[in-house]
């Protein structure tokens, strides 16, 4: 026991409870490794030996309502947060009665009933999400705090720094718990950083940073108590570095040659469980009989859980598509006729630009639903967003609900995910869609997958608005792409790409209402183009395409700003006696297969047009679908018109060559009709 062991001696029940939790953790960890040794279980497992005291001490401080986020080396955190042992083991055996119906597994186990909201398999990625859980609790006026546990290796990753900065800026009720076990996977601390104290990194963010002996439950309880009290009383976050030592290799079966053998031997000699056991005996806090009883009970609990798990059924095949979205008919292959939006909507019609329609819609959403809030770079007044899309909203609704952020996309999306998990309806702005690249882990590995990985027990009702600034003649390669296909390829994300101010309103409101993460694309090319917008409250159901112009000779299937080019092409074709139908997909996921197939089966010819690079673009998916479904009815092969296979060039002469236009659509259409 270290010098920090000055409190808690008068509270023997706490210490006994900590030991009880430590042996439950150790038994669970040992049982999993027994299963792996026998070859009965076969997965990568990251044992927690050497870190048992940290989670056990934390369990004394946190309540069931407090949120926890942990990482793949997290069995100790999972057990200590209160996840039922049977459900843990059933999940590891891939059973339907596991915490996540067997869909998460050891690296993605969550149990919202006990406050365990996320276990991530991506180093450092839980840290920004914890901010969102804490932000939601604070906006909801609850006393909940959030703890996020991560290894020392995670302090090297950008998400850690972005998240600490934001948590400090917003004074969020978070405990950042770095369990420093001296190794980032196979690399020793001294080989990946010159920092001698990881806790000292808190100084850079004006946050208290504390180093504590991670083998000493009494010191840990004290540190956690201080941090929890600070968080609950509005004092903001704390970074705690719990110093411990990993007692085995990185994963089950890993050799230990990368570890300092003398340090490992010493750590095993001072392992937290036997050391604390001896302390409790020496101090007269527990008798041998007390301790043996706790050990027997823990062993029995774990053996019962393993027996339970072995005998439970695996998930049936019909679980495969369940929990991708709230509604399984939203997956792209599903064949369903969706309700069409009402023809007439309430309220007078006003002329608004696309940008004004976004502002008007966000205003309406903020005004009608307290769960809705906005976050993004520069979105507050006086800037009101880089293109003024959010102008006036922070003045009207306050900075609590219209939150300007640091330039930190991982922190923005992570916080939005966490807030969505906790029942809020965040609308995050990623200024330009090219910047999705810097937060793609949060979008693709977390927002998209948390529902599925939790077996439907959590969900992420998050909207991300993002702008493509292509074909406006000034942005060049890093602000002008159309990256919707990155997102359509990730199951779990809805992808919406409107072409008119009125559609933008009805679709954005649907996204905000939706129970799943929606990525909402806006186009600079048409951002300041006016159109009629009903001022009443109306929704356009996701997955409903719209025939923007009827025609009988061919179908032009398109979305986003390319709809304007398609309509222009249709006019040119009409002048030559060719009637083109323009189908605006509006949503790529969910996809309105019915409207597309109905149109093309009628016309027998199709051109798919989009601004995104043609190679591997969404048009390929549509073309494949049409050839498969309408093979006999097609009068000619489906044509594709998309961006050239180049980065978007700056010079206008080249940019105009890169992006498709009405003339190219006309040429493609004529080629089809000549077949």
């Amino acid at each position, binding site marked *: 026991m270290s010098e920090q062991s000055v409190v808690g001696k008068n509270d023997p029940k706490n210490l006994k409870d900590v030991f009880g939790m430590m042996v439950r953790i150790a038994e669970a960890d040992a049982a999993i*490794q027994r299963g*792996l*040794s*026998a*070859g*009965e279980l*076969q*997965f990568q497992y990251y044992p927690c030996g050497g870190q048992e005291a940290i989670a056990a001490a934390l369990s004394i401080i946190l309540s069931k309502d407090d949120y926890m986020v942990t990482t793949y080396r997290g069995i100790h955190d999972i057990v200590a947060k209160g996840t039922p042992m049977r459900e843990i083991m059933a999940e590891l055996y891939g059973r339907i009665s596991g915490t996540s119906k067997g869909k998460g597994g050891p690296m993605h186990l969550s149990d919202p009933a006990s406050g365990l909201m996320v276990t991530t398999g991506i180093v450092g990625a839980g840290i920004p999400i914890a901010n969102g859980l804490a932000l939601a609790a604070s906006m909801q006026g609850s006393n909940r705090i959030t703890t996020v546990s991560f290894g020392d290796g995670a302090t090297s990753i950008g998400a850690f720094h972005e998240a600490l900065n934001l948590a400090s800026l917003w004074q969020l009720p978070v405990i950042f718990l770095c369990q420093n076990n001296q190794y980032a996977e196979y690399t020793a601390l001294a080989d990946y950083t010159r920092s001698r104290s990881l806790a000292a990194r808190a100084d850079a963010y004006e946050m208290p940073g504390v180093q504590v002996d991670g083998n000493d439950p009494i010191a840990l309880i004290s540190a956690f108590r201080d941090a929890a009290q600070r968080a609950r009383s509005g004092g903001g976050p704390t970074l705690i570095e719990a110093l411990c030592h990993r007692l085995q290799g990185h994963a089950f*079966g890993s050799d230990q040659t990368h570890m300092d053998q003398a340090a490992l031997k010493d750590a095993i000699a001072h392992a937290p469980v036997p050391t604390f056991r001896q302390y409790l005996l020496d101090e007269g806090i527990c008798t041998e009989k007390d301790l043996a009883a706790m050990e027997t009970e823990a062993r029995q609990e774990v053996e019962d859980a393993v027996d339970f798990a072995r005998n439970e059924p695996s998930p049936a095949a019909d679980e495969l598509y369940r929990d991708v979205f709230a509604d399984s008919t939203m997956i792209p292959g599903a064949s369903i006729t969706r309700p069409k939006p009402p023809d007439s909507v309430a309220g007078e019609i006003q002329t608004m630009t696309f940008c004004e329609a976004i502002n008007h819609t966000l205003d309406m959403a903020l005004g009608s639903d307290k769960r809705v809030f906005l976050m993004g770079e520069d979105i507050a007044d006086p800037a009101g967003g880089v293109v003024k899309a959010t102008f006036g909203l922070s003045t009207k609704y306050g900075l609590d609900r219209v939150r300007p952020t640091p330039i930190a996309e991982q922190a923005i999306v992570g916080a939005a995910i966490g807030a969505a998990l906790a029942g809020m309806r965040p609308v995050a702005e990623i200024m330009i869609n090219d910047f999705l690249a810097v937060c793609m882990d949060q979008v693709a590995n977390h927002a998209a997958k948390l529902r599925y990985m939790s077996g439907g027990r959590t969900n992420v009702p998050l909207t991300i608005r993002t702008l493509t600034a292509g074909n406006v003649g000034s942005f060049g390669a890093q602000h002008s792409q159309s990256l919707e296909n990155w997102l359509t390829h990730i199951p779990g994300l809805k992808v919406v790409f409107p072409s008119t101010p009125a559609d933008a309103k009805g679709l954005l409101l649907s996204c905000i209402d939706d129970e799943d993460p929606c990525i909402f694309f806006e186009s600079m090319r048409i951002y300041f183009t006016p159109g009629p917008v009903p001022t009443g409250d109306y929704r356009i159901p996701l997955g409903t395409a719209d025939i923007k112009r009827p025609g009988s000779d061919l179908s032009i299937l398109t979305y986003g700003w390319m709809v304007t080019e398609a309509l222009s092409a249709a006019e040119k074709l009409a002048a030559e006696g060719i009637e083109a139908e323009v189908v605006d997909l509006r949503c790529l996921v969910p996809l309105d297969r019915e409207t597309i197939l109905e149109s093309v089966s009628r016309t027998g010819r199709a051109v798919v047009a989009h601004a995104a690079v043609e190679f591997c673009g969404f048009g390929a998916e549509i073309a494949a679908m049409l050839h498969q479904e309408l093979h006999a009815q097609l009068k000619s092969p489906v044509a594709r018109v998309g961006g050239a296979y180049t980065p978007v060039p700056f010079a206008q002469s080249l940019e105009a060559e890169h992006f498709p236009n009405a003339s190219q659509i006309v040429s493609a259409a004529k080629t089809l009709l000549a077949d």
Partner: protein
Amino acid sequence: MPNVILRMPKAAVSMQTGVIGQWLVEDGACVTEGQLIYELEIEKTMVEIEAPTSGVLKQIAVTGESYNVGEIIGEIIG
């Protein structure tokens, strides 16, 4: 203690097969849970595998031979 079948464990991400380097306990001898019972050779490294339970070890796999992950290599009779 119930009998526990020993299968070739998956002890590394890329592991498809493993070779028993050497049994550390004789066939028919008693082992206790946690005791090292054999050396497993994978990807040019050697790791030692612990007994998942206590009992009498029945060796099935032959030293130096390669076995697929999941293949039966022995049993501990509880």
